[in-house]
């Protein structure tokens, strides 16, 4: 199947954010001594994001932005890729080669000049597979120079290795096309500074990941065509692009407007880089919920603690428990979603690893009815996360983001307010 994406897909609206003044500590004194502030330039740190049906027209609650990539060091050999999914559940930029047009990016090799490849597993048991290349990533006024990015295509140079295919080679499902992915790529801006499973295993991801071996099916080299799990150089390990920015690099703020309970055709908001670094990304009244080493926190519902809960802009609904446990109803049409006769309201308590607690209220409406609207943005879309009370998490997807400022703090970076969050945090 040949898939072409439209080169004129609409660019996401870039917010015309005016460069802000940095407020210097100690400016409030009445001393007449003149202090010359250090030269500070603040970058335009916001890009527009849109919740719409995406390039394939089937995505609901998909949050997309536009990313510009250039050959390293070039300001002219560049292309702008629209409809890239903003994913706080992963780290690193992955782009479909079909969206890059004629732009050619240098591949990353190991010391024996083998091209570095990456395999990414999804909980849907699908995978994406392709080489790691180097690019300068530009978003608003921010730049991640010589970043490792993954290039995915429907016809990769090497066959996907069996060790990455959890169900074996027959019938494995890939997301290597725009049709399957529903986007032109994934912009991973989560809690981890790097896309390195190895550092998750060792317990903390704040120090640079220099190795990715140890039998983890993630990074590969393919000498003589036979792909094997490999220890790849640091240059081959994808980074959260935000962590590579020279400023505004300690996390992101995702800001989406409220939408009505009946849904809305689309919604537009912003992705703002940095936390507490400029006037447009101050924490304000948001509370910091530190995550554990697995980027999770605890949600308590009806007296039961679900200690592996998380917020994820790459999840398109609120996925929690199951219909039997909740007194909810599974949909007749939309498999896996909830279809209560009347909208159900829930109140849960979230607790961070730093002890912060706070209540969250949300609703689930009838998903079959919501989908009939043809809209893309729903704040009350809920679905089954699997089992009954033994299910160990709530997955707060895009519905959680509407009408909130949601901050994602990167592990190992500066935390505003001096809160203890060695593995990163959420704030809202």
């Amino acid at each position, binding site marked *: 199947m040949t898939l072409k994406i439209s080169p004129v897909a609409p660019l996401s609206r870039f917010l015309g954010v005016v460069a802000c003044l940095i407020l210097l500590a100690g400016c409030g004194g009445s001393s007449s001594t003149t202090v010359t502030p250090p030269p500070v330039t603040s970058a335009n740190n916001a890009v527009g994001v849109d919740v719409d049906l995406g390039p394939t027209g089937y995505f*609901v609650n998909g949050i997309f932005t536009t990313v510009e990539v250039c050959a390293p060091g070039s300001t002219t050999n560049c292309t702008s890729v629209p409809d890239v999914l903003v994913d706080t559940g992963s*780290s690193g930029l992955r782009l479909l080669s079909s969206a890059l047009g004629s732009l050619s990016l240098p591949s990353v090799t190991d010391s024996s000049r083998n091209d570095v490849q990456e395999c990414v597993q999804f909980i849907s048991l699908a995978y994406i597979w392709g080489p790691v290349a180097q690019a300068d990533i530009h978003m608003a006024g921010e730049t991640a120079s010589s970043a490792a990015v993954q290039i995915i295509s429907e016809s990769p140079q090497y066959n996907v290795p069996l060790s990455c295919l959890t169900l074996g080679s027959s019938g494995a499902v890939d997301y290597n096309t725009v049709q399957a992915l529903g986007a032109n790529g994934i912009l991973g801006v989560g809690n981890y500074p790097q896309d390195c499973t190895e550092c998750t295993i060792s317990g903390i991801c704040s120090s640079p990941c220099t190795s990715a071996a140890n039998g983890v099916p993630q990074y590969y080299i393919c000498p003589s065509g036979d792909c094997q799990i490999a220890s790849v150089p640091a240059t081959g390990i994808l980074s959260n692009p935000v962590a590579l920015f020279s400023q505004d690099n300690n996390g992101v703020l995702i800001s989406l407007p409220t939408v009505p309970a009946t849904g809305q055709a689309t919604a537009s908001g912003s992705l703002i880089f940095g936390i507490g670094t400029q006037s447009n990304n101050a924490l304000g009244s948001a509370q910091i919920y530190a995550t554990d080493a697995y980027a999770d926190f605890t949600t308590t519902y009806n007296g039961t603690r679900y200690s592996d809960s998380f917020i994820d802009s790459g999840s398109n609904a609120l996925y929690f428990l199951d219909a039997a446990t909740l007194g909810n109803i599974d949909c007749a049409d939309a498999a896996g979603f909830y279809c209560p006769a009347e909208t159900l309201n829930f109140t849960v308590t979230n607790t961070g690893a730093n002890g912060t607690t706070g209540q969250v209220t949300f609703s689930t409406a009838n998903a079959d009815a919501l989908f009939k609207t043809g809209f893309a943005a729903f704040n009350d879309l809920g679905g089954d996360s699997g089992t009954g009370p033994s299910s160990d998490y709530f997955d707060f997807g895009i519905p959680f983001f509407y009408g909130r400022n949601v901050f994602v703090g990167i592990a190992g970076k500066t935390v505003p307010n001096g809160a203890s969050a060695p593995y990163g945090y959420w704030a809202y």
Partner: protein
Amino acid sequence: MKTMLGVLLILTLGAPPAGAVLGEYESSVSLDQQYMRGEIRVTNAQGYKFHQITSPNGAVVREYVSPEGKVFGIAWKSPFIPNLQQLLGSYSTQVQQAAQSQTRRRGGPFVVRTNDFVFVSGGHMQSFHGLAYVPSLLPQNVSAEVVR
């Protein structure tokens, strides 16, 4: 609940054994252990026991065994998705079919639920978890909720 047995470490090289676990006898657990090159610990609980295999690359797999010696459930928590073909054995076909027929309208946990088989794949990148069990193989007075 009492933890029994120490640690057995088996190092095997070469092709993974063509074994299966879910729905099979307890002896098939050792095939998974060999495949994962992991340490195993057995825990006895009321009405069942479970083997916990911990591999050097961070995967933790639990296999739940009934008093009749059959594996009625498995659960995992791992930085990557473990080899489900190996762990699910004959049940992996159902999961394959469901994985191929799912639509991307649902962007969240992957659930397969039939009268005699329940499968859940969830979590997120670098922290995957999931479980599978066969309701008809659950021991008497043991709830499916123990599989986690």
